[in-house]
């Protein structure tokens, strides 16, 4: 493999420094695709779907996609912070379950608003535990969060006895969160947008997001710069757990109940979304906008396939192909000359 630097060098003429400096002289199409490649694939798939089905590109269907992707989107946005900080959180799915159980159990006792706060606090506490294990206790993020996942699963079963925890149908405010709508638009879709904005601000405009990125980029450099690395790694776990906690509350609201299991199934989707999202806009590192688009893509494809009624083998094959295509277009045109990152 050669690091093909620039194209043909102007023979003879000594290259002047300023000219080459930092300027990207590739073909404009390549440059365009590097940034927009993944989004282009997403759009192409969307266009194909809307040609194939007149019902695909409707406000109501887009709302349905947003509604469906809510849980996964929140999980994935939370996970984005942890991955950005350079770790992994495999307990996210289970935190969703825990949060919804805690919330559903507390509602009859404390009322919905207090129950929501308790559920969020519990989630954040779990995130804190994850963070402390991974930093002060020096346990690898993968094993540490799997351990916490087991603990939570045990706890969930203990709390519920394996049965669902019902939320009263008279909890109007609480059920409005996950079930309300304004015309075609679900309240949940609006909240998704709100939480995205919050996540975006945290990630891009506040110091916490900035430091989380710095720590993930190079913890040693961050540490040497006087940044309390552990604090930000822990913060990323707390943020992640908080987003899972929110997802759990909305899940309980949408279902008018909390289920003893199930959340763990979101894990793979969330990882796919975060790492797919990392290629979006050619950033090469996780970012919340990319993650959101990644989740949207996954759920859009799923929604489209269900509308068409493809059988499950064709469906999986299509899923695999579009996923690889979406990531591949950007990745292949990566501006990094030497590609040596394999995760």
């Amino acid at each position, binding site marked *: *493999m*050669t*690091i*093909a*630097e*620039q194209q043909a*060098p102007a*023979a*003879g*003429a*000594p*290259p002047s*420094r300023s000219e*080459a*400096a*930092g300027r990207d002289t590739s073909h404009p199409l390549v440059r365009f695709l590097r940034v927009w490649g993944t989004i282009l694939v997403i759009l192409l798939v969307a266009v194909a779907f809307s040609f194939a089905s007149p019902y695909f590109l409707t406000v109501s269907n887009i709302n349905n996609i947003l509604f469906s992707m809510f849980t996964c989107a929140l999980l994935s946005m939370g996970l984005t912070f942890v991955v950005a900080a350079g770790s992994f959180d495999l307990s996210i799915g289970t935190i969703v379950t825990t949060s919804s159980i805690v919330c559903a159990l507390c509602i009859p006792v404390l009322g919905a608003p207090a129950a929501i706060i308790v559920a969020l606090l519990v989630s954040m506490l779990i995130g804190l535990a994850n963070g402390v294990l991974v930093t002060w206790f020096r346990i690898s993020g993968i094993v540490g969060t799997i351990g916490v996942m087991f603990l939570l699963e045990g706890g969930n079963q203990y709390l519920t006895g394996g049965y669902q925890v019902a939320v009263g149908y008279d909890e109007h405010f609480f059920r409005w969160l996950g079930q309300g709508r304004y015309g075609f638009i679900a309240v949940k879709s609006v909240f998704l947008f709100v939480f995205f904005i919050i996540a975006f601000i945290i990630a*891009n*405009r*506040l*110091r916490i*997001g*900035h430091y989380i*990125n*710095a720590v993930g*980029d*190079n913890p*040693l*450099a*961050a*540490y*040497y*710069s*006087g*940044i*309390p690395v552990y604090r930000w790694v822990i913060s990323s776990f707390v943020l992640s757990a908080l987003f899972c906690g929110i997802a759990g509350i909305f899940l309980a609201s949408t279902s008018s109940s909390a289920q003893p299991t199930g959340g763990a199934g979101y894990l793979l989707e969330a990882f796919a979304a975060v790492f797919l999202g990392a290629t979006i806009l050619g950033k*090469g*590192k996780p970012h919340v906008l990319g993650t959101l688009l990644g989740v949207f893509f996954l759920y859009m494809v799923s929604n489209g396939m269900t509308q068409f009624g493809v059988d499950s083998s064709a469906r999986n094959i299509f899923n695999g192909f579009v996923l690889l295509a979406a990531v591949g277009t950007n990745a292949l045109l990566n501006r990094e000359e030497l590609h040596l990152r394999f995760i």
Partner: protein
Amino acid sequence: MDARPIIEIRDLRKDFSGVHVLKGIDMSFDRGEIHGLLGENGAGKSTLIKILTCVYTASSGEIRIEGAPFHGHSPKAANDAGVGAVYQDAELAWNMTVAENLLLGSERRWIDRRAMEREARDILSRIGLDIDPAARAGALTAAQMQMLTLATLFHRKFKVIILDEPTARLSGRESELLFALIRRFKAEGLTIVYISHRLNEVKLLCDRATILRDGRVVATLARGEIDEAAVTRLMVNRSASDLEITNPGFARPEVALEVKALGTAKLSPTSFRVHRGEILGITGPIGGGMEQIEKALSGLIAYHGEIFAEGRPVRIDSPSDALDIGVALIPEDRRKQALFPNLTMAENVSLPILDRLSRFGMVSTADIMASGRRVIERLQVYPAAPGTKMRYFSGGNQQKAVIGKWLSRDQKIYIFSEPTSGVDVGAIRQIYEIMLEMARDGAAIILMSTSFNELLSLSERIMVVHSGRVAVERPRAGFDRDSLLAATLASEVA
């Protein structure tokens, strides 16, 4: 002015999981002085300053800052107490911009990238650095990266600034820029702790110098007492004249490597040849194109033109092609480009020769350890523990291992890029001896260096590259220090 020392260190001891590294250090830094910290590789200099800035915690001992006992637990605490440092193993957040790196840790509450870039541009221009604040740190050249790590210190309000081998990756011109900055800070009343293996710099800059050896303070010298002979004797227990070396000339008639019209995007077509046994020195301003030769010959960048190895035309499209052809590269940025921090020292040095060590595809651990021990002996790597992970070695000992890595593989052509940066005066001589030995045994050596001493001691011919082309190429005898400097500088004017 307060006459008390700004930092006092009393009976400071440090062991890493039982390995004693600092064995009772007593020293102090005065207000407004530039204090040199010298010592052989592995003496404990970096460890000492990392304890000062709370990267490591001392096993015992006391540190006082401005008279008050200081107990911090993170570099942030040290920063807050007014002590800042650029470490030997400093790194940048590679995917962040220059501005973000520069301001890391001192951002405002609301992150505004434009404002940060403006602020960064301001700081950079005050320092006199010409780097685009919006550039990605990972895309800078090695020298720019080093200057940027230094720059991160200079805009913060520190009372003491510690620099651990800041010039190891800098060329003369950039070093000058740094010295000017250091003097400016001294004038403002700051204390500078300056660690370097380049004794001339220490002599030039420092008001006092402390010499460490094997975890203890051997001596503290005042400005007038700092001379190379004394320092060398205190550091490595040898006389300076012992360390001088010259190349008697081992060049043979056979040509080992010939390039014809070799050019890259930043290098106009260049032709030269290196004979077996010959050491060809190449120098020039950083970014002037000399690295292009190194990169092209080691398969790191695309080139055009022809390369002949022992008369045969060859293509070098990747480092493994280079290896097959017989070219070994000892790269400049050892930590990023040459070291496997979590592998043992023995594994590191035996990696290029695994194919030779293996019998029927099997490699024995004993053989790997043995090759590690050979390198330790030849280069006096310290500690002499081939089974220790590479990252536990001191900077200079890592550099020795990088060089040692290629010793056991008899390549035909060696490209050394700044082989002695960060290496103590004693080891420099060992490395030179080894290079000469290799030349004597018939290897062709291309030495890329910005140290004139090194070039003049080792080379048989010297080539100066600037503005993307070869400006001068003459036998060693045609140069002395001044003319070499002139040739290099002339290029910068051109």
